[in-house]
């Protein structure tokens, strides 16, 4: 693909492939799951070939998502470890939201919002997986008592709604922070982008000479 000469790699090919497998599965889960959650959204089951198909496919998408998310954890956990910058950045959240970046403290590879998305999903996906197994009628319908399944389905719904809200924030943030989407589709950002949004990360890269002003880097 065409990259500017000074492009900085933000997400490797593996990062991106894993992310989009994850995104695809998540969307399939949201659509099939919501079809079974509220009657006004039941029509979404048509996308899967009807209610029986949506019901049957949903748990399998979930199993695949868990596998995919393990890949995400392996690749991204380190970049999402909390740092002391998170406190300062979080305190400046009003300025962040207002695009008032002069009052936002410099941060590393990920900001606290991105870390929150990562850790929320890392918490919610296992919760959804376990509660999902308990209510997977075909295989585990008789494995636990009905009162346990009632609680499981309520927790499953609550966790799903939380995950969808996190996802809405995640998607909008990607649109709002211009060129973030390109970093996940084509893998690169410009030095100005890194300077503007993740200055400490930019300085780290500059110091380790992993980014050069002139020499183009091969797409990893």
């Amino acid at each position, binding site marked *: 693909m065409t990259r500017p000469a*000074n492009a900085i790699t933000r997400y490797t090919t593996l990062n991106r492939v894993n992310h989009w497998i994850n995104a695809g599965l998540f969307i399939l889960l949201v659509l099939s799951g919501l*079809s*079974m*959650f*509220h*009657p*006004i*959204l*039941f029509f979404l*089951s048509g996308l899967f070939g*009807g*209610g*029986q198909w*949506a*019901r*049957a496919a949903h748990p399998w998408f979930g199993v695949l998502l868990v596998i995919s998310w393990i890949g995400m954890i392996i690749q991204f956990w380190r970049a999402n470890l909390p740092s002391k910058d998170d406190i300062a950045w979080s305190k400046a959240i009003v300025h962040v*939201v*207002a*695009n008032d*970046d002069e009052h936002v403290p410099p941060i590393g590879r990920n900001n606290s919002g991105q870390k929150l998305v990562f850790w929320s999903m890392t918490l919610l996906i296992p919760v959804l997986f376990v509660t999902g197994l308990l*209510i997977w*009628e*075909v295989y585990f*319908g008789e494995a636990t008592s*009905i*009162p346990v*399944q*009632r609680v499981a*389905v*309520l927790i499953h*719904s*609550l966790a799903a*709604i939380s995950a*969808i*809200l996190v996802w*809405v*924030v995640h*998607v*909008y943030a990607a*649109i*709002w*922070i*211009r*060129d973030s989407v390109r970093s996940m589709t084509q893998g690169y950002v*410009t*030095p*100005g*982008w*890194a*300077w*503007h*949004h993740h200055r400490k990360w*930019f*300085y780290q890269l*500059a*110091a380790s*000479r992993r*980014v*050069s*002003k002139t020499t183009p880097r091969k797409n990893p």
Partner: protein
Amino acid sequence: MSDLQSQDYVRRSATTMTPPAARSHEDQVAKLIDVSRCIGCKACQSACMEWNDLRPEIGHFEGSYENPMDLGPSVWTLMKFAEYENEQGNLEWLIRKDGCMHCEDPGCLKACPAPGAIVQYANGIVDFISDKCIGCGYCVKGCPFDIPRISKTDHKSYKCTLCSDRVSVGLEPACVKACPTGAIMFGSKTDMTNWAGERIEDLKSRGFEKAGLYDPPEVGGTHVMYVLHHADKPSLYSGLPDKPRISPVVEVWKGILKPLAVIGIAMAAVGAFFHWTTIGPNEVTDEDEAEAARVLREKEEEST
């Protein structure tokens, strides 16, 4: 007594609009099971299989009169046998015909996510419209009586229909027809309640002081009622719930959470859209690029 058509639904699962109800001027029906007159012959069980063409798999003897040991997708009614030693030290054999209670406020219908898969007719019968069932098992979680069973073959939920097909042409349910002792009666709910009153009076006169009618108000009453000699302790009868109610967990899940969640998600999306149109995108400027280039130049000079 009933039309039992798509025009006399009073409740319809996963439906936010009023179901078609133009033909809903009907008597409420009820089946009355007088436990004190039941001899445990299982004629009702056989009649149910016969009329509904149900053939459960033949199992094994489990050391109990109960056969099979549980309700199933092909076992819609089941005689349950309980041995109870009363205060006088005497054995009482409490036999109860188990099956769908046809709640006035059905938990299965409340929990069902498939539009029209569970309906309640104006006469009170709760029926599963199986071609609309998606096999999720939510009705199992909604039911306070542990009645619906999901078939492993077709992934559909099944339970007693109160022989809605027979009732619609003026016949009584098959189990009622077959009962040799008159322990199972069928008619309007008013008539059945009155008849139960007479039976209870009789039982009381014969020493069953706690005899009474089981028509639990927690689920709005039921269209299958029991005359019990120990109405103060329904759980003696093979675990008939003392105070059946739709679980509060199900009420939250299918009550407040549903609209709140949809509104919450929609508001998040709308909020994001208006952030975009008021505050707008956060873009990288030429100055940012120039600053970044300057830093990189400096670093490169340092290193050479």
